[in-house]
Every structure is written in C-alpha cells, then in structure tokens.
C-alpha cells in the first residue's frame, strides 16, 4: 500500500519493524517527530520510551537498556550528536548494540534549525575520542530511511556496535510516496547469548574479527559491563597484551565485515567517462541529472552510497570502470566526502559540487558538471519545453 510519510516516520516504521523496544530522546528540530512517534509507537510498553532532560541522558538510558537486551534507538540532530559523543565511545568500548539517528541540519552549533545541510558525514565517522570505527549509513529519501534504519538494527545486533543513520531536514520532514510493505527485508537474527558460561568472560572473542556473545545484564548469571579498558572478563586491565587485543578487536570487527556493511545502488555504463557519486539529499538530483543526460545521448555512470563508513571501497572501485576520468561528487556540505574519495581514487579527477546555504543542488548543476556548459544549456531548453507542454 502506498503511503505519504516523512523520512522521520519512515525511521520509526523501520525501527518498529526491526523489533525496536526502547527509545530515549530529547527534542530537537528536525528530529523531534521521531521522539513523539516512538513514544506513541511504544505506548503499550510502559516506561520503554522516554523524553529525557538532555541528550546525554537520552543515550545513557539507551545504553543501559540495550545492555539488558533491549533493541534501543535514539534520534537527534547535529548539536545533539555532539552531546552524544562521549557516550558513543562508551557504546564502542562496551560493545553495545545501539542505533543512533542524526537528522542533520545546516551549519555548526545551532546553525539553521529548520534548514537542511549534510555536514555531519565526517563528524559521524570520528564522533568520539579514540577514533575507532563505527558504521555510518546515509538515507537519500523516506524509503531508504526506512530500510536503512532496519539494516542499522541488524548491523548493531550482529557486530555489537553503535550504528549511525544520517538523514537531513529535507528528508526528515519531507513527505514522500512510499510503499514500505513492498520492500523486501532480510530476516532478523536473534542475539547469540552464549548461555550462562559466557557471563564470566562477557568479552571473549575467538579472533579479533569475531563478535562476543551477548550476555545481558539481568540474565541468569551476573555479568560485567565497563567502558574502561578491560579484559575478556569485563574487569579493568593493565595487561598490554589484553589491551592491544581489545582495541585491535574494536577496529577489526568493523574492518573485517566491511563488505557486509556496503549498501550502494549501481547504475553503471561501461563506456562512461564520468561517474557521479552521490548520497543523501543530493542523490535525487543526481538521479534526475543522469536520466536527462542519458536521454540526450551522454554516457554517464552513477553510484549511490547508502553506507558512508566504512567507505564502500569495493563498490567504488567497481564503479570506476576503465574509461572513467572524472568523478563528480555533489554534496550539501563543504565537500567533505569528495575529500575522502581523493584518498581512494587515484586515476580520475574528483570534482566536488557543494551547496551550504540550505538550498538543494539542482539536477542541472550536476548535469553541467558532468558534460559541459553547452550541454547544460540544452537541458535548460528541454526543461522549458517540458514546462510549456505541461501547462
């Protein structure tokens, strides 16, 4: 059934479909409707959805609940993500399954509360001290906000890690046509709990890449949780071998599973000389630009990134087919992801298209960058003709 819902409503639906049973949040534009909708959605479970005194308490409550076995969600905007920062580190160190939604808005600090912007894409990657990796997904519209939220829960459970899902104001609050029930989603796997024996070594891993079984607080045997550096028994350690093993494991469990964390949409042309790489709000414009360019005979490839970190390197390399010389990267920030792509892409020029004033990047801007000014002018004409035919 087709519905007409906002990106934030899609997040709530994705979370509920993934079995989310705990939410804590603090009001902030443009994330507030996730808070109110989650309180409504979990209304039949007393105490399981709460508006806290600040963002620190919100994520703290979620971490506590998650360690009892709850599937916890919190949602905020950039200023709130800044306040989450220290606790995201705790969730990494304690290996807490947790989904964090960041409905981005314009600029640093209070910025533009009701204006769009996607400037948190690198911040989300290095969001806490120590700079250990965590998966970051990025929705391009309401539908992808839905299935990415669902996937975020799967990743959080599977890798015992906080996962960040990025939206932005014009995805969060824009209503779009969606057919959520038609989206095919993989099944959820229950947490492996390791039974009672796991409780004495709740952070035991077979290899650096593996993920410790989840032994819940409140389970049949007492278990220890800590954000301090710890051994497999969950107690503080000063043993350098144990420290190295724990911290290497935090890196390796994400790196080794990078392929599982790759969410992209390929629309490639083997003869293309230009590749458009887009994510977030700029992706819709990129799709329209690519379609129009092809209609007018241009050869162009397009790669949509739904996962930003770890960088989907395999998909990007695959999209860099033999003839690609230029990569056009439209983004609603100062060119953050283009900079990161420059580290990976050596044989093609990265052309960064940015807009930071709260407006959207127009398909024509992308088309112009892909071909040249002349072809773009043609597109303007086509656009005008289309207008006159319609009115």
């Amino acid at each position, binding site marked *: *059934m*087709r*519905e*007409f819902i906002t990106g934030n409503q899609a997040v709530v639906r994705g979370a509920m479909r993934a079995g989310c049973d*705990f939410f804590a949040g603090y009001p902030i*534009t443009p994330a507030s409707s996730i808070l109110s909708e989650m*309180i*409504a*959605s*979990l*209304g*039949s479970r*007393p*105490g*399981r*959805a*709460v508006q*806290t*005194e*600040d963002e*620190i*308490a919100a994520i*703290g*409550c979620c*971490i*506590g*609940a*998650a360690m*009892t*076995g709850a599937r*916890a969600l919190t949602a905020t905007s950039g200023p709130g993500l800044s306040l989450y920062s*220290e*606790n995201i580190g*705790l969730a990494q160190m*304690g290996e807490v399954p947790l989904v964090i939604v960041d409905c981005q808005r314009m600029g640093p600090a209070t910025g533009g509360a*009701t204006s769009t912007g996607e400037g948190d894409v690198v911040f989300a990657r290095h969001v806490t001290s120590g700079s250990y990796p965590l998966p970051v997904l990025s929705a391009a*519209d309401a539908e992808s906000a839905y299935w990415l939220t669902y996937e975020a829960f799967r990743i959080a459970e599977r890798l015992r890690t906080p996962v960040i899902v990025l939206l932005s104001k014009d995805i969060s*609050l*824009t*209503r*779009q*046509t969606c057919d959520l029930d038609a989206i095919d989603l993989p099944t959820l796997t229950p947490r492996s709990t390791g039974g009672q024996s796991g409780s004495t070594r709740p952070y035991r891993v077979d290899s650096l890449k593996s993920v410790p079984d989840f032994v819940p*607080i*409140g389970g049949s045997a*007492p*278990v*220890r*949780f800590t*954000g301090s550096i710890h051994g497999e028994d*969950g*107690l*503080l350690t000063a043993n350098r071998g144990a420290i190295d093993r724990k911290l290497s494991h935090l890196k390796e469990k994400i790196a080794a599973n990078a392929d599982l964390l790759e969410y992209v949409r390929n629309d490639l042309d083997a003869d293309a000389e230009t590749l458009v790489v887009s994510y977030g709000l700029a992706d*819709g*414009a990129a*799709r329209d630009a690519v379609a129009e360019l092809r209609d007018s005979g241009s050869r162009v490839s397009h790669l949509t990134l739904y996962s930003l970190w770890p960088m989907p390197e395999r998909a990007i390399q695959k999209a860099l087919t033999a003839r690609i010389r230029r990569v056009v990267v439209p983004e609603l920030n100062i060119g953050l992801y283009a900079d990161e792509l420059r580290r990976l892409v050596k044989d093609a020029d990265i052309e960064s298209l940015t807009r930071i004033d709260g407006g*959207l990047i*127009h398909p024509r801007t992308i088309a112009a960058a892909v071909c040249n000014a002349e072809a773009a002018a043609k597109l303007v004409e086509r656009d005008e003709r289309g*207008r006159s035919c*319609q*009115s």
Partner: protein
Amino acid sequence: MSVLTTLKDEMCYCPGCSHGLALEHLGEAIDRLGVPREKVCLVSDIGCVGTADRYFNCHTFHGLHGRSITYAEGIKRARPDLLVIVLIGDGGCGIGTAHLVHAARRGVGIKIVVFNNFNFGMTGGQHSPTTPERARTTTTPGGAVEHPFDICETVAVSGAGYVARCGVFDPNCVERLEAALRYSGFSLVDLWELCVAYYVPENKLTRPGLKELSARLHMPFGLVRERPPRPGAASADGEAERKRPSSPEAISLPWCGRREVCVAGSAGQRIRSAAGVIGEMAVAAGLHVVQQDDFPITVRKGHSISNLIVSSGPVHYTGVESPHLMVLLSQDGLSRLPILGVQTEGSLLVVDESLGSVPPAARTIRVDLRRIEKESGKQTAALACLVMGVIEAGWISAERILQAAQQALVGRYREENLRAIRVGVDWQQSLSERSPATPAASM
C-alpha cells in the same frame, strides 16, 4: 554468601578511606533484602568508588562520569524487576546534577548511594560541589568560597520518594541503606565519608567531626524526606499504538509528468495541511508525491510555505524552483519566496487580491480571500484556493477532484476538508463564468 566478595582491607582504597566500610555496609544492606544476585545490578560512576564493581558478585555496569544515573534508569526501565543501585561520588553528583534532579522528578525506582567525601579523591583533591565553605583543597588553597551543594534537599524538592543523609560511622548506616533499597520508587542516601588522602589532612576532619560539620552546614543526619511511592512513575504517557488508516479504495487519476505547486502564506492558514490533503488524494490515486515545507521554528507565527510535487513517476529531485502553480495567500509568504529562490514565471498564480507587488506570472487570478474564508471557514481557505488553482490549471476536472476527495480523505478533518474542496470547486466555476478560461486539456 554475601553479594560483597572482598573485605574492606583487601580493597584498593587508601588505608583509612571510608569507601571500604561504606561498601561493606551496602553489601550487608543488599544481603538483608534477600534478592538473588542475578537480580541486582550495581551501576558505578567515575571516581575512587567507581572501582568497586569487582568486589561485588552481581551484575555491574561502569560507564561515564556523572552519567551512572542515566544508565541505571535505562536498565530499570527495561528490567523493572531488577534492583538497580547507583554508586556515585560527590563529584558525580555535580557533573550529573541534571540527571540527579530529573531522575528524581521522573521517580523511576533506582537507588542512589552518594559516597560523599567533599572532594575529588581520584584526580588529586580538587574541590567538589559539596566542599564546605572555607575548606582547603588543591583548587581552593585560600579556602572554598562556594556554597556547598545540598544533595538531599535538591532531590527532595525534586520529588524523590526516600531521601536520607548519614555518616558512614553512624551505627544505623546499614538500616538507612536497607530502607532506601526497600523503597519501591526513587531513593537516595547521602553517605558522608572521610578522604584520608586529601580532605582529611588538609582540613583536620575526624570521625566526630562529620557530625559537627553536619550541624555547621545545617544538613542534619537522618531521614530527610519520605513520600508514598508514586504509582506508575516509570510509565511513559504514550497512547496506545496508533493504527494506520485503512487503505482507501484506490481510484486512479490520469496525470502527465511532474507538476510542481507552491502554496505560500502565514502560520495559522493551514498551508501545510492544504498541500497535504491534495498530496494524500494524489497518493491514494496511485501518483507519486513529495511535500516539502518551509516554516520558522515559531510555528504559530511567520511564514508557512509548502511545496508539492505530483508526478506520474517516482520523484527523485525534491526541489521546487519554478512551480507550475503558485497559491499566494499572505505577505509573510510573499516575503519569504525570494529567500527560497522560488520563481513564478510561466506559472498560474492564484493570489489574494489584498497583496501588493506579486511576482510575475503567465496568468494571475486575484481572489478575495476574506470571502472564501467566510464560505469555507478560515482554517481551510488555503485548501479551497489550492483546489481552485489545480482545476483552473486544467490538470484535473472538478468532478474528478470531488470524487478523489470522497474516497481518499480520512480522519477527523475529513468533513471540514471536503467542504473546503467544494468551496474551491464552486469558486473556480464562478471564475470561469466571469471570464472563460483558455481551454486546457481537462481530464
């Protein structure tokens, strides 16, 4: 077997430090409750007492400084059957004051034990929020000048159910702790202690001196507050799960390509609702729709603008720069358009006749908004104007739009919206009677 597995002299604390004794008291109090150890969770803050986890055989959680209260609340909310106890210092009560106060207000049944020794022991004897005036610490070499924080009164006025203060050497210390743990709502015990590494040598504080300090600061030992537990304090006040509206019987609307509409007005004119109603009708008819709104954070004042894209195929780019139809209903909306970069050239403009210099449009229809408001009701005049514009643009016939509205609209505003749509249809008809519109490809 006790929940406490280690004797105080075998713990890591400085010889003479009160923490070991306080932990022994706590262990005894927990034991007296007879709760199985797998039903107990200790949540420790940062500070010397934060190292206490290892001495207890129960669930333990050690997080960030000042935030122990938040983790405890999350655990208790998710597992109300657990006995959840926070071990926090006076420093933690400072950095986490907001959590202390608001957890007390919410009343979720966590138990807080404050290991209050008037300074930061772990980081080198700096002053804490509870450092008494004139006390010397490494950061108050001339004596503290700040008013000491009364933890008990603070949580008591904030709604805490059980609040007590006692010295760690008081003979009834275990009873106080036990009573706090047995209390079913939020409880707190402020346990006064000696920090032998810093506070004691600097300030000559002694065991009897704790009582004297209590008298001097007018913070008496004993029960500070006891209230009957609040029923359902941990419950969220959410309503029952909302049901999605049932799928209306779909009708199909013939539609060609992508059409962009901008409705611009003021807060209170229900601009967004108007666009939403048309959007819902279009979605129900199998079309693809995007509605993007612009409004200030003061939602009851200032501009309100809604951009609507209705398309026969999926919509990717969601921006609207040059709408095919613009409905302009107030100066607030008009003033905002240039900021959004919304142009109107080539479009049909439906505008309130009271507005001054409006943007150029291929065709402009001036309407008397006040009269429309009288017919449709003030709240839905924007919808009436929008319907008028949609028909006048020749995109859809009056008959079709009425039919689609009948089938698609649900919810508490259905009748109100249907009336407004009828008013819009009537106004459009009276327009065409006055000056017949250029024949458009009516569907």
